[in-house]
């Protein structure tokens, strides 16, 4: 098990406080700066490892940054039972999660250099037994939401104010277990559960709508009892607003409309960058564009 990096936690706390106190325009700038730093780190990790899922990492980064720097009631150095919980159900985007968790101080950012290296705690998919900040192991798709439903039911039983956030890929919603979980979430009135869909419209091999179409996704999620909020998944302020508790009392589904490969011109919305590894020249250009 990796250990908390207290020095980094202090840096994260200061940054989070600064973001919390900032006016909207400055807040957006600060969050965008954090997100670009995480994207750069992810590209470096994937170059060092020689593998990874760069496209989805880029699309999910703003979703994660807003959660960990603005929304979640968490602190890596203080883990009370009533803290908020986060699950990255699209576990193949572990690099983006690890870079985010390390920036918060859940473990030392130095560990990121071991991503997918032999014996590293930082496996290609997150493992809670080894990585602080990971609440449950993901990788096979359709696992995060049922676990979060259990956590949300547990929070109700315990009278806890904790909120559960799950980020799922859009292609991932083709797994039936998600819809089993949503039925239960609505039935149990889990207003403390928020599903964020990274709607980049691409899955491993093709567009979602050419594979097994999800649209009308908003209507489908609403029909399953969710309060649906469709936003620009790269707009930090819009995401922060969409992460607010529901008005209706049921679960919230945030459709975060994103671009796979976001921020790297030659990767954006290109299906082949699901898990392709850049050449060193491409990586150089990617880092310049992300500066």
């Amino acid at each position, binding site marked *: 098990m990796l250990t908390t990096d207290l020095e980094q936690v202090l840096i994260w706390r200061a940054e989070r406080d600064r973001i919390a106190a900032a006016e909207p325009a400055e807040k957006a700038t600060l969050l965008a700066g954090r997100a670009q730093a995480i994207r750069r780190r992810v590209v470096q990790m994937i170059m060092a490892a020689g593998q990874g899922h760069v496209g989805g990492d880029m699309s999910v980064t703003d979703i994660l940054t807003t959660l960990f720097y603005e929304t979640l009631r968490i602190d890596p150095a203080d883990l009370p*039972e009533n803290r908020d*919980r986060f699950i990255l159900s699209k576990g193949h985007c572990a690099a983006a999660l690890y870079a985010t968790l390390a920036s918060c101080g859940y473990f030392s950012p130095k560990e990121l250099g071991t991503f997918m290296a032999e014996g590293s705690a930082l496996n290609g998919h997150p*493992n*809670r*037994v080894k990585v602080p900040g990971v*609440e*449950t*192991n*993901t*990788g*096979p798709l*359709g*696992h995060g*939401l*049922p*676990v*979060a*439903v*259990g*956590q*949300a*039911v*547990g*929070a109700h*039983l*315990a009278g*806890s104010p*904790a909120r559960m956030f799950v980020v799922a890929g859009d292609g991932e919603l083709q797994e*039936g*277990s998600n819809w*089993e*979980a949503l*039925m*239960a979430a609505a*039935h*149990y009135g889990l207003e403390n559960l928020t599903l964020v869909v990274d709607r980049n419209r691409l899955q491993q091999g093709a567009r979602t709508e050419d594979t097994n179409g999800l649209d009308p996704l908003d209507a489908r999620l609403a029909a399953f009892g969710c309060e649906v909020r469709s936003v620009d998944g790269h707009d930090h302020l819009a995401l922060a607003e969409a992460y607010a508790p529901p008005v209706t009392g049921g679960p919230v589904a945030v459709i975060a409309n994103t671009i796979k490969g976001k921020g790297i011109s030659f990767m954006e919305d290109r299906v082949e960058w699901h898990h392709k590894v850049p050449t060193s020249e491409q990586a150089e250009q990617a880092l310049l564009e992300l500066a």
Partner: protein
Amino acid sequence: MTAVDVAAPVHDNRKAFAEELMALAAADPRIVAVCNDSVGSSNLVEFRERFPDRLINVGIAEQNMVGVGAGLASMGFVPFVCAAAPFLTGRSLEQIKADVAYSQHPVILCGMSPGMAYGELGPTHHSVEDLSWLRALPGLDIVLPADRAQTREAVRMLAAEPRPTFMRVGRHKVPDLPEPSTLERGRFQQVRDGADVTIIAAGTMVSRALQAAEVLAAEGVTSRVLNASWLAPFDDDAVRAAAAQTRAIVTAEEANVSGGLGAAVASLVATLPAGQRVPVEILGLHDFAPTGSTNVLLTRAGLDAEHLAEAAKAAIARA
């Protein structure tokens, strides 16, 4: 006294399970039950009446059910996830692997009516693959209580020290084993001793193994009988001792032979030094069962006292 009266009263272990769970839940608010519409078949009707908030019935959705159990465990609850064993294990095998065993969330998976308890309902409703599937998962305990006392003790132990576990909760009625019928993690219980052969039996097979030992005794063959009540972690020591101290081993389980108790015993015996590699006979299921009652199907599969005794003699003859 280890003789088993064939006319002894027999019991459905689900009742003992539910009674113990309710008694513990009354004192421990962390205990919750999760089920898949199986409130009746899991004997949870009274639990629901007494603790309505703590029975989470997710409906007919086993993948979600196991995930919900993992989520509850991660919030500090002690979830007993109850469903008919074939659907609990088969439908949600990947959830058991990723959310429970690999994630090490302390969920107690309770496979109700395992083996061929649903006789005439057929192989879709039989759970004879569970031991093979789940024994392949590191970090998951497997418990097979053989009578009411062991069922109660399993519930008590797992509530006190929850860990990722699959336990079979038998519906096919079995007699109480000779006292004291105890349970220990990672250990088999010796319920009879003898020198010629060791019969290692699990769950419903333990009382039948004791009957087989009586049959063999009448023919001058003495049997050690082991109750393989905690299948994982596996009791290597008990098998080594059986190989060293008796001439042959017979295993009996209400399960497919491809990867359960017999396979575990055989793979250990195969690693012993040449002089200790005693013959092993493995009794269990080899095929999808035809239509029949549980008793008929067990007899047909050779899982009764007479067949067990014959298998013991065959094993000794190979020694």
